[in-house]
């Protein structure tokens, strides 16, 4: 397609009016309140409902809540999650009624797109997207968080249902 270049009018060809207009904008902003944040010295307040890094949580009694149902692994669009189920002779679950918990649980934070599907699909309220947005490491390997790390970062989640206790 050929776009015809519009002929400039005399006023436009004068050049100065446009310059003055530009400086007006600059001056207006110069005297306004500053909005630039001095990151990383200054940090922002992460709003509620923000979707940061997904971590695993424990219940208030210190039990791993994940039961290794692998639904998050299934739903995760970029396949960031890899769970190793316990198998028949794995370590006993923290809560005997829950029968199982993962042997290993890895999230590749480089793959994660922070969509929150894992949190949404989890039937055990065991994985949550938290407020961490700044994830760095010195190697790709370091960015694969294992179960221990995910649990440590996730902390404790208030449990209102105590599903496996009242079984």
């Amino acid at each position, binding site marked *: 397609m050929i776009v015809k270049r519009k002929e400039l009018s005399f006023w436009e060809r004068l050049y100065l009016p446009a310059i003055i207009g530009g400086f007006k904008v600059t001056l207006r902003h110069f005297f306004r309140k500053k909005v630039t944040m001095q990151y990383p010295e200054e940090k922002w307040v992460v709003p509620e409902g923000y979707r940061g890094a997904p971590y695993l949580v424990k219940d208030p009694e210190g039990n791993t809540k994940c*039961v*290794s*149902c*692998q*639904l998050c*692994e*299934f739903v995760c669009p970029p396949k960031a999650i890899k769970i190793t*189920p*316990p*198998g*028949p002779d*794995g370590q006993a679950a923290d809560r005997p*009624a*829950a*029968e*199982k918990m993962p042997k290993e649980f890895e999230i590749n934070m480089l793959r994660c797109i922070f969509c929150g599907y894992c949190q949404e699909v989890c*039937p*055990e309220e065991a994985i949550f997207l938290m407020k961490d947005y700044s994830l760095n490491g010195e190697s790709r390997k370091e960015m694969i968080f294992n179960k221990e790390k995910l649990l440590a970062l996730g902390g404790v989640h208030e449990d209102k249902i105590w599903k496996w206790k009242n*079984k």
Partner: protein
Amino acid sequence: MSNPTTTESKPAPPPVEKIKIKVDGREIEVPKMMPDWQGKLQPTTMLQACALAGVEIPHYCYHPKLPVAGNCRMCLVEFGTPMMGPDRKPVLNEDGTPKIAKSVLPYEPGTPRGAIGCATPITPGMELYPSSPATKQMREAIMESLLINHPLDCPICDQAGECKLQEYSVDYGKSASRFVEEKVHKPKQVDLGPRIMLDDERCILCTRCIRFTKDIVGDDKLGIVNRGSYNTIAAYPGTQFDNNYTLNTVDICPVGALTSKDFRFKMRVWFLKETKSLCTSCGTGCNTIIGSRENKMYRYEPRENDAVNSTWMCDYGRLNYKWINRPDRLSKVAGSRFKGEIPSEVWLEAVKAILAVLNKAPQDSVAIVASARQTNEELYLIKKMADKLGAITDSVPRTGESDRLLLHEDRNPNSTGARLIGISPQQMGSNLPKIADGIRTGQIRTLLVIGEDVTRHGIGAELLQKLDNLIVSDILPSKTTELAHILLPGCAHGEKRGSFVNVKGRVQRFMKAMEGPGEARPEWEFLKELVEGVTGRTGPATIEGLFNQMAKDVPAFNELTWAALGDQGVTVPL
């Protein structure tokens, strides 16, 4: 075109008597009698008729290969029959069509009364309404009642993903429970037998497991104890549920009550890739499905084939797969010939080295021991090579105890193939002493061993050390592979395609589920290269082509084709 090799051509069946019924208003003709679980003709049931009409009736306790119990009530269907006048003549509508009397509750004529589809025979003129609102309501009510005491522990249940309760809940379930009372609690994690775990809370008391073990296996070990909502499945007091077929109950249990201890918590089923395969643990050749994920095999399941294994398989065969994932699998081309230098094009070098040996070998100086666990295609290639070299060949017989159901005393999956192709003499193993003698006298200088540890079958290490060339291909390390001058890593059946012939002459094919470890290659691939090097003629480069060529060359295969084998195989006359 009908295939001439099929031996199952029965005498022309007598004309089937058909009756007309209506399913969801559509008129169809169905046979009056249909085979029951034993294959005997019985009056066609509403469930079978609907299936013929292409309408699936949800069901739990009905299983086509088990006697009908009719206890879960999930298959309830609203129906009507032609109305009869007092003169025993059908009452007609104004337009001349027969008037249909819908079945209703006798004490409440406004309420439809369903009948269980799995056990109610159809009658001429009957109308079935499997999609009517009343039928739907019946199913919803049954679902609600089945779920009253259900523990809802899908996240930790191995059945999740292939559970009928889950499936029908999606169709007929409620998202919230109306049940406010305390649920009845029943035993969980019950150790029912050495291979079976029972969760009584998940059981819906369909009795499939009981019927299977009583009527199919003949081991009347399971039953229901206690009353009412405390009903539980149990083994006879003081005994274990332990026969060679227990794991089939895990397959047929529609819910997660019976689970396999072997598969327990290993992998969620929706991740498993399903590949059609065969069991290699005996000559029966049960049809199986391999469940694998990311190159790791997790389980076998039986696959229906009425000419071989119905829908069952034995526990012995089912659990005999772990060697495939063993960490010590052979994965490198090796052997004393390659001491020190590891050529970059290992396979090329290895094949070249073997061809150098074979092409120089005088007639009668080569012997080949090829396992009856190899595929027809591989054995055929070996046979071609042996013919050219004038080599003596044999396989190793392998026997065990049989049972009256599926397990055969011949523990090789392809003894018949080895005999038909001519690798093994009629009396399998009778050439082995001759080979041993040949090595002892120094006449046999080169031995090829494909998939066997010959040191355990009469050709000891001291004999093998006398050889000029010991060329071995195998999957797992053994005494023989240790002594090999050239060692080629091969593939398990799950890692290649091919065909076997079972003890009854059924030629069946299996598909590839996984890749072999490391440098391992399917044996037929390198055997093909060897055959081409020895005979100087190129052959087909695919399994299909190889099979078809073999079927032309070996008369027993009657010009079968790979495509004609289908998923169920074809029987050839023995």
